């Protein structure tokens, strides 16, 4: 199930995979993060186990996007399996490093 809101940004959910996989592509900012929040919150509520959030195709991350990821990680920590950030791209790793917030997330690999 795909959601695209323009400018090459999109969210894809693969509910058939185990664990559930949500992939984000494009620029994750204060505007687009709303869609990610909505879609991943939905998956966290419905998935039996872990939810993997694939960030390998994220081309930009700002503090708004990072806040959304932190909120989702907090939501995931209260349930079995939780949320994992999978293969964060260089722009994602850069912002995690700049802000020193990596410890808030489970990152794989």
């Amino acid at each position: 199930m795909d959601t695209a809101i323009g400018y090459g940004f999109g969210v894809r959910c693969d509910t058939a995979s185990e664990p559930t996989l949500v992939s984000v592509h494009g620029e994750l900012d204060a505007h687009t993060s709303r869609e990610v929040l909505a879609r991943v919150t939905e998956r966290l509520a419905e998935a039996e186990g872990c939810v993997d959030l694939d960030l390998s195709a994220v081309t930009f991350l700002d503090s708004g996007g990072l806040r959304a990821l932190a909120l989702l990680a907090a939501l995931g920590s209260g349930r079995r399996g939780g949320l994992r950030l999978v293969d964060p791209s260089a722009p994602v790793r850069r912002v995690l490093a700049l802000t020193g917030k990596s410890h808030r997330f489970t990152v794989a690999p």
Partner: protein
Amino acid sequence: MNIPSLAQTDSVAERPRSEPSPPEGDVVAITLPARLDRVRLLRLVAAGLGVDADLGVADVEDLRSGVDELSCLLFAAARPGSLARLRFAVADGVVAFRAAVARRPGAPIEPDEVSRLVLDAVTDGYAIEASAEELQVELVRRRRSGAPQEPGE
């Protein structure tokens, strides 16, 4: 860059180690709706002007992040339906950015912790000024890394 100073300010968040100062050079002025979905356009402009200023690759990425952070703060505090006035000043090795909007009454005007950490890391100085009616932001980013290399170098 010639946005007039505000006569009265009720809050100022400012990074102390460097005052934003406009460089001598080209000015690019933009007016657009003060909405978060328009910030992407400003990132594109910032990146293009950073290249024009011969900033390094990492500098351009930092400039893009800084413009994004301040624009998001600005637009989130803007009066609904208002326009933002934005100016970039570009010279060799430096880009300055200044923007202003009509302020929504009671809107927050301080960056949160995460945004402040980003701004501290990616700018050479930024400032936020607010009056009851208006909010202004500005930043400057200078070349830190080497200029982009020519192909084959």
